[in-house]
């Protein structure tokens, strides 16, 4: 894996490429990670009631800015962390994917609430069953909707994650296959594997519907 990454990114050994940390790299890591985790600008992708809680967590009572999320960046090009708050229908999936592609590295993603994380109660024809089939997700915040404290805790977990990152393994953290941009993050096999034992509909196959042919009717009884 790391060999492939190194060859694809052009980083071969050297000061930051070596995977064994040195005094210099750990000190640089410390400074860089400190700066990054204390100036996370969220890109709010609020589509439903979770967005209200997200707004509440940015408002004066909870005040997300205390933790370095100084302002909501409504341009993905100036954002560090994507907060997907709310349900995402299939029609919105390419929009979400494009916003993620437009965000510059390094970037993180919070899936806020049950709908964004798993589809929630919306196990229907129009709804994405978890945004991790569209984009990579770092932190899932459960709840329907989560309280502002929950979202803040999720963002602090992102900060913890950043604290452990190292420039030496930069390519590994940030690797994205350019061919996969605009495609599902999970392939079909993985999407199937995501379906839980509780009967999540990602396991659905073509035969699970009432009928298979488009346009024909079921032969149920006509009620007079």
């Amino acid at each position, binding site marked *: 894996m790391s060999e492939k990454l190194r060859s694809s990114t052009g980083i071969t050994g050297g000061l930051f490429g070596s995977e064994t940390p040195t005094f210099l790299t750990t000190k640089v890591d410390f400074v860089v990670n400190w700066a990054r985790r204390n100036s996370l600008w969220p890109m709010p992708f609020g589509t439903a009631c979770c967005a209200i809680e997200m707004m509440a967590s940015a408002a004066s009572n909870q005040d997300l800015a205390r933790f370095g999320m100084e302002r909501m960046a409504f341009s993905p090009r100036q954002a560090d962390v994507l907060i997907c708050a709310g349900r995402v229908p*299939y*029609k919105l*999936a*390419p*929009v979400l*994917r*494009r916003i993620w592609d437009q965000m510059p590295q390094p970037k993180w993603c919070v899936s806020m609430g049950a709908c964004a994380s798993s589809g929630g109660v919306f*196990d*229907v*024809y*129009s709804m*994405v*069953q978890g945004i991790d*089939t*569209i984009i990579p997700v770092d932190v899932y915040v459960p709840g329907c909707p989560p309280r502002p404290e929950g979202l803040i805790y999720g963002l602090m977990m992102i900060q913890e994650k950043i604290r452990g990152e190292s420039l030496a393994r930069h390519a590994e953290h940030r690797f994205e296959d350019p061919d996969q941009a*605009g*495609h*599902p993050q999970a*392939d*079909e096999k993985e*999407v*199937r594997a995501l*379906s839980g034992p509780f009967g999540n*509909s*990602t396991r*659905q*196959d*073509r035969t*699970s*519907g*009432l*009928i*298979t042919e*488009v*346009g*024909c*009717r*079921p032969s*149920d*009884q*006509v*009620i007079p």
Partner: protein
Amino acid sequence: MSQTGKSNAADLSVEVHPSVQALHDWFGVAIIRDEIVAGDEHVVYVDASRITEVLGWLKEVPEHLYDYLSDITAVDYGGGRPIQVVYQLFSISHRRSLRVKAELPLSALEIDSAVPLWASANWLEREVYDMFGISFKGHPDLRRILMPENYAEGYPLRKDFPLRGRFTRAEQTQRALSQEPEDYYIPADFECGRKPQLVQWQETGGEPEPDGDPSDH
């Protein structure tokens, strides 16, 4: 009605709808039947082939004047029964509402468009087309409005449509991501200062629009 203890005058106002009686007198057999649902909601079933005639009459005649189209929707009761197209009308000047229904057999899901009467019918009919697959003859821009343009699983609000769609979730995800968000719009939607499409039908009857060059806008 008398069990509710209301006065006779109140009962009369509920049971007699002036437009329903007038429709029977004017159109005869084109009005198939009428009923009262939910206490005081008058419903008129109209021959689908004469729907624009009836709706236009209801809109224009001064005694009725249903100038506000609240909603167009459809109902599929399943079991092979016809799909009902529902027009919810309201007369602002007379403070009266009327529900007009037209039944379409599943073999011929086609009805005349109401866009020439009410411009607000445009998106409502697109939604009915999107969800039920009913095509509206004469609609200026009949295409899907809620589902993606490349949606190929059928019409979601039909009774025979499985809740989770016909494709696998992986297939649905890949289809959704394979489209460009710009596909939802026609190129003319992006043009600034474009003359709205819907104005055209109004102008055909009035004075002709001078053919100015586009830079006038």
